[in-house]
Each structure stands twice: as C-alpha cells, then as structure tokens.
C-alpha cells in the first residue's frame, strides 16, 4: 500500500507541481522527454546487440531502419532535449535575468519531441534506412526505399531543426536582451565575452604587463561555452536543413513522377559539406557544451572560481576555429579527397582536439582538487565518470584520425564504440546525469530522492555496461569487425555476447534510474509537469517567502 502511495504521490509528498514556476516546468518537460527518448535509444541499441548475437532476429531492412533511427532518437530526441532544456534554464540562471521567451522554449521541446517521433515512424513503418550519414545518393535511392518513408523521416528531421533554431534564437536573445526595468546592457562587452575574446585579451594584456582587459567578464564561463557551442549548433542545423531540402526535392520529384538524375550532385562534394556540418555536433557542440557543463558543475560543487579562467575562455575561442576545420578526418578513406586536406584538416587540426578537450579535463579536475575534501555525492561521481569517458574516447578519435591507422580502422566498430559510444554513453551521458542531479533540487524545489541505493545501482550499472560495451566492441574492431554490418556466421561471437551483456546492464540501469525518479516525484508529479503553471512569474524559481 505504501509503495503504491509512493508511486502515485512520490517520496514525502513528491513533486508539488503547483509550486513550480513556468521556467521550472518547461525545463522539466524537456528533460523528462529526453530521458524517455534515451530509454528508447538504449532499447534500440539492445535490439541491435541482440541481433548481433542471434542474427535473423530482424529482417535486414528492419535492422538497418533501427540503426538509422537509433542516433536520431539518441542525439536529437534525448541529448538535444536534455541539453537544451538544461541550458534554457541555466543561461538566464547564470546571467541573473529572465529567459527571453518561455513560449519559444515550450515550442522548442515540443518540436524536437514531435520531429523525433516522426523520423522514428519513417524508420519503423516504412523501413527507410539510409543511416544518419545519408551518403549520396542513398537517401534518394528509391530502388530500395519507399519515398513516402523518406518524406516522413526528412520532415521529422526538419521539425527537429526548426526546434533547434528556436532554441538558438532564445539563447542568443537571452544573452543580449535588456530586461524590463534594467539599464541598457551594452552589446560590445557581451559579444566579446560570449565569444571568449575577453579571455584571450586578458592573457595578452598580462603578457604585455597591463591591467586585465576585463576584471569581471560580462558573461560567466559556462555561458561562454553554451554560447560558443550554440554557434556550432546553428551551423549544423543549417547544413542538415539544406541537405534535408535537397533530399526532399528528389523525393517530391519521384512521387510526382518526375524523377531526377541524382548524379547531378557530386557525392564527394556532398560528403564534405555534410560532414562539415555533422561534425559540428560531435567536435563543436558536444565537446564545447560538455566543457561548459564540467566548468559549471566544478564551480557549483566546489563553490570556487575555476582554475585558469582566462585560459579556459581562450580555449573555447580556439575550439571555434578547431571545430570548423576538422571535418576531413571523416574522409581519410576517400581517395578523391586531396591529401593536403587529409593532412592538415584531417590529421593536424584534429589533433588539437586532444589539446582543447585535455585543457577542459585538466581545469575541471584541478578546480575540484583545490577544494578537497569533497563529498562523493551523485553529482561528483557522475562528473568524474563523465570526464573519464572523454579521456578514453578522445584519444581513440585522434588515433582514428591518422592516415595510417584510418586505413585499417575506418568503418570498423572502433570508431563507433571505442570513440562514439565511449564519448556518448560514458562521457556525455554521465555528464548529463551529473547535471540532472545538480539541477534536481533547484528544479523540483528540493524533492527528496527515493533511494540512494538505486542511484548507486544506476551509476555502477551504467558505467560498467558502457565501459564494457565500448571495450568489447573495440576489441572486435581490431579483429576486423565492421560497423553497419550483420555477421551471420558466428564471427566475433564472444565479443558480441559480451557486448550484449554490457548493453543489457545499460538498459537495466536506465530502468532503475527511471523508477527512482518516478518514485521520488510520483506519477501525480510527473503528470503535473505538463499542466500549465499556476504561478504567473518570469522568475526562474519561486520567490522565497
């Protein structure tokens, strides 16, 4: 009886949604959907792992449609929603002013959630499966794909991108607008600070023996990271939208009986354009957003200023240049790509990601070290695990971005597991969980967690599962296991079984996390998040009485 009571009403009364501000609600709405989509992405991943152990579980076209929607659900449906939700709250929180528009924030999460569902349906119903890379002309190959499926899938992506552009607009507007009753905020220091240029100037002024350019920067460091990452998010959205329109033109042409010749688009040129944009998600957006989140968490956990603030600001500016120039590492296996681009963009500039991410790791760890002893709470342990994930994943990418090693690693499971899944499942996801635990008391008005034991099980289950899967599949890669391939004759079976066991741990630990959250806030609280707020305020949190 008491369990049912807890399930419905939450722990010690659960989440009292009547007391939530519109800002708290819009943030929670996005995050809850993000966590649910994460579960769907993990489930899809597990279905693929199961098929690798028992090939034939799915028809091949069905299997590849799961593989196509898996990153869409994971990146856009889950990560974008959690990150955008959190940043929608954090930017005004750190800038100490209201969000520019709560209405836009609501449209943003609804667009991304709806667009993700639509793309998922394109895969689930029509088995549209060009994979997220959309190598030309595969997405318009109607010899094997139904154009209606393509239409549903591409329109879903377009809706996601529109939601993304709305988030970007809201973020930039929040940074630059002057709120009612406040004296006019000058634009120049805000722009210089948001781009990290003031940090660079401070270093230069120090070298030349002058007073710092800006003693108190106009924008706090985590906001600089959010702002910087959002520039890449914008460019990425524009590239994806452009490719989407191109594909749409071909789909409409085919459906209207006026099929067009796809050779009029050069596959290699398209690949360069698409990877330039897509890489901004990985090398711009993720790395920069993550660095900003680490800095914020380190400051919140320790209550101290960040170590080497100016360097951190300048590094974010450096990352701007680096992230725009590294895309050729995806084309090291393309013989038509000029060697000079492979060498400069693919190898040398890419190597600087080791530096920029290494700086973020160092600054975060040293900031934590400067405040010891610290309590090993959920925030700290998830943060450390997140840092560890990137420490494993980034050098794997640098090795892959080598002309010698790429020749024997490209399109193997190395890149997708030792790099991508280590980065996303350990690095990014653990960082996001750390952010969720940090924001939890602020967003829920101090709802008590149902069980620390369940939180521990979630932590270890997820960590060991993600680590195990990344390692086992990485070992398979070094024995020749390709990604995007079904092995039907028992090849790499031991690794596939171990990978599936590790994947199951991730799925179970996500379920444990979900149960813990629901039992904390209660089903009533969960539903209440999606009802209109009863407090008419622009304040982020309820005014203290």
């Amino acid at each position, binding site marked *: 009886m008491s369990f049912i009571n807890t399930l419905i009403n939450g722990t010690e009364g659960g989440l009292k949604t009547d007391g939530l501000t519109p800002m708290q609600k819009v943030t929670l709405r996005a995050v809850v959907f993000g966590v649910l989509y994460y579960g769907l992405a993990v489930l899809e991943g597990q279905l693929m792992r199961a098929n690798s152990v028992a090939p034939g579980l799915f028809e*091949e*076209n069905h299997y*590849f449609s799961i593989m196509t929607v898996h990153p869409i659900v994971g990146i856009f449906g889950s990560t974008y929603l959690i990150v955008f939700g959190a940043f929608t709250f954090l930017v005004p929180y750190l800038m100490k002013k209201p969000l520019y528009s709560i209405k836009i924030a609501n449209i943003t999460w609804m667009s991304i959630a709806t667009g993700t569902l639509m793309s998922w349906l394109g895969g689930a119903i029509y088995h549209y*499966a060009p994979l997220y890379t959309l*190598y*030309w*002309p*595969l997405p318009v*190959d109607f*010899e*094997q*794909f139904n154009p209606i499926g393509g239409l549903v899938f591409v329109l879903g992506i377009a809706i996601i991108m529109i939601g993304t552009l709305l988030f970007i607009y809201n973020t930039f507007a929040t940074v630059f607008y002057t709120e009612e009753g406040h004296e006019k905020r000058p634009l120049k220091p805000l722009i210089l600070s948001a781009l990290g240029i003031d940090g660079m100037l401070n270093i230069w002024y120090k070298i030349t023996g002058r007073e710092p350019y800006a003693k108190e920067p106009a924008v706090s460091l985590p906001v600089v990271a959010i702002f910087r990452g959002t520039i890449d998010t914008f460019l990425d959205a524009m590239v994806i939208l452009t490719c989407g329109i191109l594909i749409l033109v071909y789909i409409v042409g085919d459906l209207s009986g006026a099929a067009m010749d796809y*050779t009029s688009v*050069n*596959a290699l040129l398209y*690949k360069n354009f698409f990877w330039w944009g897509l890489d901004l998600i990985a090398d711009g957006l993720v790395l920069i957003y993550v660095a900003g989140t680490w800095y914020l968490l380190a400051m919140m956990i320790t209550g101290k200023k960040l*170590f*080497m603030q100016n360097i951190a600001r300048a590094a974010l500016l450096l990352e701007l240049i680096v992230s725009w120039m590294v895309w050729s590492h995806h084309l090291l*296996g*393309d*013989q*038509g790509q000029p*060697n000079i681009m492979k060498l400069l963009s693919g190898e*040398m500039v890419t*190597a600087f990601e*080791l*530096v920029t991410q290494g*700086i973020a790791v*160092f600054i975060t760890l*040293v900031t*934590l*070290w*400067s405040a*010891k*002893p610290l*309590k*090993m709470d959920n925030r*700290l342990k998830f943060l*450390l695990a997140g*840092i560890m994930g990137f*420490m*494993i994943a980034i050098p794997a990418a*640098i090795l892959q971005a*080598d*002309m*010698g*090693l790429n*020749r*024997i690693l*490209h*399109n193997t499971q190395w890149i997708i597991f*030792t790099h991508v899944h280590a980065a996303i499942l350990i690095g990014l996801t653990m960082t996001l969980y750390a952010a969720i635990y940090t924001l939890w008391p602020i967003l829920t008005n101090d709802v008590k967690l149902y069980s620390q034991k369940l939180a521990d099980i979630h932590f270890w289950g997820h960590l060991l599962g993600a680590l195990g899967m990344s390692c086992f599949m990485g*070992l398979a890669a*070094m*024995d*020749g296991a*390709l990604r*995007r391939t079904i*092995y*039907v004759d028992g090849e790499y079976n031991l690794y596939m079984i171990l990978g599936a066991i590790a994947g199951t741990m991730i799925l179970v630990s996500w379920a444990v996390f979900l149960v813990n959250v629901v039992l904390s806030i209660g089903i009533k609280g969960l539903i209440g998040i999606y009802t209109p707020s009863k407090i008419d305020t622009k304040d982020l949190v309820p005014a203290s009485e």
Partner: protein
Amino acid sequence: MEDSAGVLALLKIVYTIYVFAVLSLIYWFAKGVSNPKGKPRIVKPGTFYIYVGLLIFVGVSIHIFTFNKIPWVETDFKRHTIEKDPSFDKSKQMYNIIARQNKDRNSPNHGEQKFILPKDRLNADGMLEIECGKYVVFDVVSEDLTYGFGLFRQDGSMVTQMQVNPGSRNDLMWQFHKNGVYHIRSTEYSGAKGGRHMTIKNAVVVKGCDVDDSRSMLGGN
C-alpha cells in the same frame, strides 16, 4: 616491414594499457578528492603549461610516428610518382573493378549490389593473382551508390580499405609482403542488399613471398 595485423596487435596492447591507466587515474583522483583528511591543493600554472605542451607533443608525434612506421602512408603520398615510374606496368598491376546495383525491377535480384571483377585478369582459380612486393592499384568505379572496398584475411581481420564514391576517383595502391588468399567485401553500408552481400570470398591471391600470412592461408596455414 609492418602489416595491418602487426599494427592492430600493437594498437590493442597500447590502448588497453591506456584505458587501464585512465581508470586508475580517475580511481586515485576520486579517492584523493573525497578523502576526509585531504587538504585543498593549488596547482601551479607552470604544471598546466607543461601539460598543454605534452598534449601538443603527443598529438603531433602520433602522426610523425605512424608516417615513419606504417608503410602505406608513404605509398599514398608517393603513388603518382610510383605510377609514372617505367617499371609500373598498368596492364599487369592495375585492377579495374566495378560496383553496381541491379536496377532491373523485373529481376528477382532487384536492388542487389555487387562487385564485378575484371574477367580477363582472373587466374584459373578465378582469383586476382598478385606478385609479392609489387605495387598494385585497385581502381573501383561505382555506377550508382557510395560503397566501400576492403581486403580481408581468412580470419576476418582487415588488410586495407577505401571508400568508393560515385563520380570520384577510388583507387588504392597497395603492396603485399606475405603470401595469402584474401576476400573482397564492401566496407560501407549501401542498403540492406549491399554491405555483407558484396563479399567475394578468396578473390585475391598473393604469391612469391618468402613468408606466409599465417592468418590468411587457405586451410589455415
């Protein structure tokens, strides 16, 4: 001379050690930062600059190391010079391969994708026969989709690969230093009827070397 098997074996050892080093470092840090007896420690900026210098050194030196130790990188850079050399006989050392999708909607194999090897270059066993130590070029043309082209040993490990884009140059120069029999397969997804279905088993045989590729001999040795 190093081959891909040797490079990958070394990578396996190096990266496993690295991952354990990272795990140990984070474990040590977690213990230290939460030790109730611990006192705040300030790190000097000098340590930071040494660390950044080290990162730059490692990032750049990886590529310098592999350039000098992995033979096929130099081949990639010098291939045009090699091809122009009078000793390079295109009629013998160049293989033209086509990748194609069946677009005949009335065919039972509609949508199926496959590689087509040059018939006039196959030996009596239906293989492309390659002389040990000679540079060879695999020139693959895609007539429709983006494919991959890879050579694999009998145990499934990869010898080499490249992407195959329609409308682009997709030619890979390679040199074999061990006897063996290799499979060709697509390394890129091109739909459910491509990928693993684009495998030609025992498509390439290398002869005339002093040593055998123990992982790629028919019959296992």
